[in-house]
Every structure is written in C-alpha cells, then in structure tokens.
C-alpha cells in the first residue's frame, strides 16, 4: 500500500508566560496528536516553550503577496493614524 502524503501542520510556540504563540515552522504528521508530539521533539529540545499549537496548514487563508500594494494601501496613506502626525507644543511636555 502506498502511504498517502502526510498532512502539513504549522507550529506555534508560546515561549514565555505572557507572550503570544509565535510561528516557528512546520512539520508533517498523520494527525493532530502525532503533530503535537513531533512539534515537541523538533521545536522544543531546549526548553523553548510552555505551550504548543499545531494548525493544519490547509486551514490557513493567506493574503496574496503579489497584491500587497493594493491590500495595504489604505494604511499607507493614512499618516494621521500615527501620533507623530499631530503637533503638540513642547511646553506641554510628554503626551
């Protein structure tokens, strides 16, 4: 029997209490339980984490890099969203 290609999982690790889970890489595993075990062995051999998430790669919807110009244009042109846009006299002090 030919083994079907095993699914790909994305691995996220919380490195310290209070930090968000961060993407660290990916791996292949037949199911979620095996994916978690493999993630522990591959990505946390030196105490890198307190918690692991594994997510099927196929469940991720990504923006298209070739359309990043259009996608992020609204943020580019709105400099008034940044605090430095506003003039506050120096006498007022830190704000």
């Amino acid at each position, binding site marked *: 029997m030919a083994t*079907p*290609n095993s699914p790909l999982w994305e691995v996220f690790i919380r490195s310290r209490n209070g930090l968000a889970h961060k993407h660290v890489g990916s*791996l292949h595993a*037949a199911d979620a339980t095996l994916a978690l075990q493999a993630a522990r*062995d591959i990505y946390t051999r*030196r105490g890198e984490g307190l918690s692991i998430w594994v997510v099927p790669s196929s469940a991720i919807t990504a923006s298209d890099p070739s359309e990043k110009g259009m996608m992020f244009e609204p943020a580019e042109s709105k400099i008034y969203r940044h605090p430095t846009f506003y003039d506050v006299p120096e006498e007022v002090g830190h704000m």
Partner: protein
Amino acid sequence: MYTQALNSSDGEDRFVEDATRAAAFQARIDADERIEPNDWMPAAYRKTLTRQISQHAHSEIVGMLPEGNWITRAPSLRRKAALLAKVQDECGHGLYLYAAAETLGSSREELVDAMLSGKSRYSSIFNYPTLTWADIGAIGWLVDGAAIMNQIPLCRCSYGPYARAMIRVCKEESFHQRQGFEIMLTLARGTEEQKAMAQNALDRWWWPVLMMFGPPDQASQHSDTSTKWKIKRFSNDELRQKFVDATVPQAEFLGLTIPDPGMTQDAEGHWRYSEIDWTEFKQVLAGNGPCNRDRLAARRKAHEEGAWVREAAAAYAAKRESRRTAQAAE
C-alpha cells in the same frame, strides 16, 4: 549543516522568462530583501535552492549514521547522553531543512525518494567511516566546525525559509563543535595510546573536511549565479581558508599535528595548505567512497522498516476522520 559541493552538480537551465519580473526580482535581491515562498522567482532560482536545501537536509539525516555508530559504545554516560542529543539535533536540522525545501513546491516524499534512489546527493564527508571513539571527537570539532563556517553566511541567504532554518541550526550547532573539541582534548591529555588515537582521527579526517567546502573556485560552475542571487556570500576557497585559519591554533592547543607538512603561514597570518587531492573527492562523489553503499543501504532499510508505522498512522487518522464524519451526520 553540510552544504559542500552543492554548487557543482548538473548543468544550469536557462529559461527565457519575463524580463521585467526577473529584473524586479534581482532588484529585490540587490536591496537585501528576503524572498518568500509565494513570491515570484526565476525557475532556476527555485531549482538551485530546492537542490541545495534538500541536499543539505539529506546530509543532516545521513550524518546521523556515522555518529549513531558510537552511541552504544560511548565511554561514559555523560558522553553517551551528549552524543544522543547531538544525533537528535541532526535529525531536527534535517526536518527544518526539508520543511524549508518543501516551500519551493516539492513534496517531502519526492525529496526523500530522490535521496534513497541516489538521484540526490548528500555531503561526501559522511561516506567516511567512524573507526574509533576519537572519530566522534574529530567529527564534532572539524566536520561541525566546517559546517558552521558554511552555515553562518547562509543565515543571510536571500531565501527567507532557508535563512530562518539556518539561524535555528547555527544556534544549536555550537554545542556540537564544543562537545567534539572536549572529546579531543580529553584524549589528547590522556595516555599515549589515547593521544595517538586522537592524532590518528585528525590524520584521517583533515583532508576530507577540507573537501567539504567544495571544489576550488576556478572549478566551481554554479558560484556566479548563486552569488548574484545572494544564496552564497563567500566562495568555497574563502570559507576553506577561514576554517583552516581558525583550526590550526586549536590543533596546536590540543598538541596534535595537522597532517600537512607543507603548510606554512604567510605574511598576513593565513595558513596556506598544500594541494587537495580532488581525485579522491570526485571518487567519493561518484559513489566510490569507503561507506557510500553502506550509508544508502542503511537509509533505505530504515525507510522500508518504518513503512508500517507510516501506514498505521495514516490508517488510524483516516479511521478517526471517518468516525467523526459519521457522528456529525447522525
């Protein structure tokens, strides 16, 4: 961790591609931007990187064999635990690298099959045998030392997933080299017999390790494009020289002699080594090294004997999935 000779295989494909896109791509590279998996890239860039990263991954996996040979015979529990951890790291490095290679569009199964069928290479250094315990010291000190020289510049490689994998690998690699040096130091400070064993390992590994950096610059066909694409940041000879300059004082500290009586130090302080025997290198690459057949046979056996595990895991996952679907339908 072993990228030797990866810029010296089959001929290069020159595809006529959209000139504007190619120019925009090169401009991104020149601006030191990282290329990510879904970005447009020239087919030859994709092909070169798939070859280099997958061969690098194969080298990590095959590299477990010569060292694994000594796990059960390590001289103490401390040495055994360290060696076991090192071999586990090599496996981890192989897996990070396969994952990076897959982002270029080949499946894990295709990549592994290419290695098992002999179509894709791994570093020729692993075709040499580990005859004594001192060889484990020499591998850590020299082979991992050479690998670090190669890999540090790869942390800045233009392809994002490869560069990120290299950063992880480099962080872990330094333990490998230090544990090897410690083994050599212990032997070198031991009995006459132990010192002779360390010297013998250095004698056997020195020249193959210099070959790890690949053919001399004049003979290397792929360097130009790899340099232009910022996959390669230093030439083979530059990296080899750096390695030799770093290693000579370490050998002196150990009280061991590098097996190159013609070696001299030039006015700038560089250690100039003698001519490398490239016929040996070509022979090993062609499959005629001392252990080529053993290594491939061991990988094939492991792959075949693990087939039932992969099948069982897939069957179990499929069963659970179909139960879940049936329950959802109720």
